[in-house]
């Protein structure tokens, strides 16, 4: 394996680990916190998770600014970025469906995977259902490659 490809794997592993650590520290990994944030009529609304999104955008933005000044990333021949610009029904419909699932259980994909380390059966059940939903969408509902 070429050095560059190997370093790419190391970066992916580290990035995942730092991301998983951040999910734990921020409280995103805890469904009760997510529901405490999304449930605005509970009488004890917890707005703290706004700071997670705000903080994340603050540090991601310099990365984006840097990326726009670079011809290619350090460890790959080119950037792999989304090219679509159209706001279509699939984007809004899919996001609406995702939001309902997120609000019902308090899990989105990243925190759910990170929470697997707790060994809770409900987390494994969520992951199995999520993977089934992804396969259902990608292989049956649309036969396009992801």
């Amino acid at each position, binding site marked *: 394996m070429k050095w560059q490809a190997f370093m790419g794997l190391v970066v992916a592993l580290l990035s995942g680990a730092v991301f998983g650590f951040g999910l734990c520290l*921020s409280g995103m990994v805890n469904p*009760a916190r997510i529901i405490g944030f999304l449930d605005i009529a509970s009488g004890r609304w917890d707005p703290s998770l706004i700071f997670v999104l705000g903080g994340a955008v603050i540090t991601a933005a310099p990365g984006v600014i840097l990326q726009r000044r670079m011809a290619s990333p350090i460890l790959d021949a080119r*950037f792999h970025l989304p090219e679509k610009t159209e706001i279509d029904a*699939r984007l*809004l419909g899919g996001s609406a469906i995702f*939001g*309902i699932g997120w609000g019902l259980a308090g899990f989105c*994909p990243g925190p759910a995977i990170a929470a697997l380390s707790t060994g809770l059966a409900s987390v494994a059940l969520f992951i199995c259902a999520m993977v089934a939903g992804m396969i259902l969408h990608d292989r049956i509902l649309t036969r396009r490659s992801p």
Partner: protein
Amino acid sequence: MFQQLYLASLLGGLILGLSAALLLVLNGRILGVSGIVGRLLGGQQIALNVAFVLGLLAGPILYAIAYGRPPVVTIIASRPLILAAGLLVGVGTRMGSGCTSGHGILGLARLSKRSLSATGTFLATGIIAATVMGLLR
């Protein structure tokens, strides 16, 4: 205690953005977990995506080592609800081309109109779903 919660949220958020910035500048890829898992399931860039998921699984272990206790994970929803929610999250994130990480963090940082629309939409339906469930509880 109250201030600590906000500080931890902000600090955690800064760390999330940092890891997304690193993946973007070094590997040239968007840190979007639903995209990473979806591509993995589709057999694309298996090694890179497996490495990221392994890292994500290791994150809480690093947290437990650093803080001397595992992260708190409290699940409110019943098992049938968890099953339904997982299916909705799986279908919805693939149909909408992203989730809280790809659209919410990177998309907003890139000032993408698509991601802003997606984030507004999933926050709105998430608030409705969680609030309705709260009223039913």
